[in-house]
């Protein structure tokens, strides 16, 4: 309870500050004319007005020397997806597997898992990667979807700029500036799986160029299908979330932004729970000491506040300073975790030297965690503060103007577990003409140890014993010996726009991994030995992703993509598991994925979209549960009617081809569940 009062105290405080900012008299700031004012001015006066333009034109996406895909607001809206994890299915090469109603396994270029750890995720510059288990709690990563400007999906390492854990990809969720979300928005809907959702946003703007918005949203979601019982799996959930964003400027050189969110989710789950054999009260669970399908609820809450200040020193020099605080709490039967993060980040862009664009930055992050340990899961110690210091430097060199570009850079990062990590990259882009780009890159990235791997004690299994003997509890232990996972990635790509209405994007890669996380027995001879988190897996993967965007007609757009990946991995020869049985690197990733979306505007008022995607089979996605996932095809349709510019009615149907299907299997605490067909109707009103 103490923490939530901070929500009100702290954010309330900053919001008071914001209110004061907004009350600043307009005269003290540079006056900004409205377009109406411009229209009334003589032409000659307009031409003599000073214009603040972006200091340097942003590099067009199709010239980037990386495998980038952008999910736009239009994509999100037209696809009918209702959450950020589901939206990621729109990107090529991203594996999205729903484990249960509120859990997802999401990964880029392989290695998906309930605790997939090689994908870095940021929302408006704030990292939402959880350092305790190295992964993302997707259920609580949300905002008003209508306010998302775009989701940048970068496949392959992005560690040189973004830092550790951007191993196989980076996901950047970027919301619209407050000036782009003016006025009111009301979004309401209901369906069988999306039982009820509601979102409201209101945005205002002042004469001095300050704009602000606030939103609140609520979701009530049904449970999924339980494989074991054929009934609902008791994982329905509800979440409530609100937030704000304000953007403004001081004079012509300084821009600022402040935003924050607060959320609360109550998520049910059915779990399998190990019971302590030493406690006589647990005798009823003998001999396995496993309570199955125990109803539990996850109580999640959190808030964050971020401020960013940009200053333009000259036409060739610009800097930004960003500070955020983030609090999160997650309580489940087997563990309660709390995190408080403070992050400060400075970045400077300088292109005063002809042909060079230099970016460098410094960062510091402090994460204070606190765990309420249980018999099943213990973090050791149960409370700790972790410090992360980082610096990066990148130079983009124009070798041949508008034709050949070389980017060199490195990140230096110091963490409390493994010390200094160096993550350099070299990228080359060749633009033979305005319609095509060839690129190549070599980069190194690391996945730093999580708190779990560095110090923990988790029940792996309880070995039954005949009466009068104490059953043996086998633990997985995290130790200080655990090292960073390492990747050396080789990538290349080709983008071409052969016609005005057709573009193609191909990326190929070869990844070389070392020190991947494994488990090793402490006593090789003992079949019931405790196991340690270790680094004894080496792997390599190769693959390709192909995306196509084609508008055969002005009112018809087709977007499709295909991805292929082959992973092979092996344990070191001295491993205590010589048969590779504790490695799911090869078995949790679909070899082939395919997606086609058709978007049609039927007249001015009706939009009709179809989306089919195929995900190949998984031999064994879960480390602890031996269950394969068959390949599946999902068909989704959406029909939207907007009788006026400000009103839209929509009907969305998802997973039309089957009543329910399995997409992924979580670790042993969760019973396998299947995704059901979903149909919902919605209304959106802009006012």
């Amino acid at each position, binding site marked *: 309870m103490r923490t939530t009062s901070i929500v009100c105290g702290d954010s309330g405080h900053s919001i008071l500050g914001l209110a004061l900012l907004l009350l600043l008299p307009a005269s003290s700031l540079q006056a*900004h004319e409205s377009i109406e004012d*411009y229209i009334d001015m003589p032409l000659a006066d307009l*031409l003599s007005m000073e214009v603040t333009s972006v200091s340097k034109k942003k590099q067009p996406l199709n010239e980037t020397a990386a495998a980038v895909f952008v999910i736009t607001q239009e994509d999100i809206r037209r696809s009918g997806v209702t959450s950020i994890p589901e939206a990621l299915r729109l990107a090529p090469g991203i594996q999205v597997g729903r484990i249960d109603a509120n859990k997802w396994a999401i990964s880029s270029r392989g290695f998906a898992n309930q605790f997939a750890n090689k994908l870095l995720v940021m929302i408006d510059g704030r990292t939402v990667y959880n350092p305790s288990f190295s992964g993302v709690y997707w259920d609580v990563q949300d905002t008003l979807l209508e306010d998302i400007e775009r989701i940048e999906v970068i496949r392959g390492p992005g560690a040189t700029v973004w830092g550790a854990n951007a191993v196989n990809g980076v996901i950047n969720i970027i919301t619209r500036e407050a000036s*782009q979300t003016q006025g009111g928005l009301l979004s309401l809907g209901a369906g069988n799986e999306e039982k009820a959702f509601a979102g409201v946003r209101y945005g205002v703007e*002042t004469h001095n160029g300050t704009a602000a918005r606030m939103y609140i949203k609520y979701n009530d979601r049904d449970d999924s299908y339980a494989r074991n019982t054929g009934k609902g799996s008791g994982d329905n959930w509800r979440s409530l979330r609100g937030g704000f964003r304000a953007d403004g400027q001081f004079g012509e050189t300084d821009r600022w932004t402040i935003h924050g969110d607060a959320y609360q989710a109550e998520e049910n789950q059915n779990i399998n729970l190990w019971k302590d054999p030493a406690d006589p009260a647990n005798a009823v669970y003998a001999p396995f000491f496993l309570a199955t399908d125990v109803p539990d609820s996850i109580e999640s809450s959190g808030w964050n506040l971020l401020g960013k200040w940009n200053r333009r020193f000259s036409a060739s020099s610009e800097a930004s300073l960003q500070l955020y605080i983030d609090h999160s709490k997650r309580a489940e039967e087997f563990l309660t975790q709390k995190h408080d993060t403070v992050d400060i980040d400075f970045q400077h862009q300088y292109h005063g030297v002809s042909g060079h664009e230099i970016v460098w930055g410094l960062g510091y992050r402090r994460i204070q965690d606190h765990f309420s340990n249980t018999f099943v899961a213990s973090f050791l110690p149960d409370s700790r503060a972790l410090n992360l210091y980082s610096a990066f430097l990148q130079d983009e060199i124009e070798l041949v103007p508008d034709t050949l570009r070389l980017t060199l850079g490195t990140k230096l990062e110091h963490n409390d577990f493994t010390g200094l990590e160096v993550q350099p990259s070299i990228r080359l882009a060749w633009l033979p003409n*305005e319609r095509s780009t060839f690129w190549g890159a070599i980069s190194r990235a690391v996945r730093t140890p999580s708190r779990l791997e560095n110090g923990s004690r988790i029940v792996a299994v309880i070995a039954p014993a005949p009466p009068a003997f104490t059953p043996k509890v086998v633990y997985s232990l995290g130790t200080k010996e655990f090292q960073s996972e390492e990747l050396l990635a080789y990538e290349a790509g080709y983008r071409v726009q052969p016609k*005005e209405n057709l573009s193609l994007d191909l990326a190929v890669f070869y990844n070389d991994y070392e020190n991947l996380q494994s488990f090793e027995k402490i006593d090789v001879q003992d079949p019931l030995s405790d196991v340690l988190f270790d680094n004894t897996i080496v792997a390599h993967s190769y693959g390709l992703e192909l995306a196509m965007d084609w508008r055969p007609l002005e009112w018809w757009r087709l977007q499709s993509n295909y991805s292929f990946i082959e992973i092979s991995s092996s344990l070191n020869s001295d491993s205590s598991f010589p048969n590779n049985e504790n490695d799911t690197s090869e078995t949790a990733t679909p070899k082939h994925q395919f997606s086609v979306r058709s978007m049609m505007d039927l007249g001015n008022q009706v939009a009709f979209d179809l989306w089919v995607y195929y995900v190949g089979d998984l031999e064994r996605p879960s480390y602890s549960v031996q269950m394969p996932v068959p390949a599946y095809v999902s068909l989704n349709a959406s029909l939207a009617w907007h009788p006026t510019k400000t009103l839209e009615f929509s009907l969305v149907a998802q997973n039309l081809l089957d009543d329910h299907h399995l997409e992924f299997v979580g670790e042993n605490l969760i019973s396998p569940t299947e995704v059901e067909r979903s149909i919902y109707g919605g209304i959106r009103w802009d006012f």
Partner: protein
Amino acid sequence: MSKHLLLQPARVKRVGCILLALFAAALHANATGPTSTSSEYKLKAALLYKLSRFIEWPPAMGKTRPENFKLCILGRDDFGRSLDVLEEHKVNGLPITIHRYTHSTGVDGDCQMLFISDSKRPFMTTILRSFENQPILTVSDARDFAKNGGMIQFVLGQKHIGFKINTYAAQAAGLKIAAPLLELAIVVHTKKNKDTP
């Protein structure tokens, strides 16, 4: 822990506390005046309207007089909402309507003014050729637009927006550009053209 945390009055109060504070701020902000943001494209949107006052379109031969002034955007729309304001204005007594197109083959021949986004640069010459000699005022901020046969090109100098006019292209399409506008512009000659001052 309670099973219905979301509905607990204390929780609702806390979320409400944040939102109310923000809303108070928002209301204060609203009281200070109507909306605006400064940007290059807001100015360009206004310029599109201003330019139209200096252009004379040829009478629509064999066609009924148009009901609207069609301002068309081809390619990526960088104007956002600032363009919508123009729909409250008129050109030559005709209310402006905004039309957006993703590719050039779909563009309606009835557009009086066509702004071509820089996103179409790789295909600019082909696009311009397809509109050649049609009474459509072509405008863009893409590099070399006027040189390649576009009529009006916005250029961004050190701090100010200026424009280049290709008088030959305009004349070939039957558009007349008033002298005061030409005086403010850099006149570009492509093909043989000696009529401009």
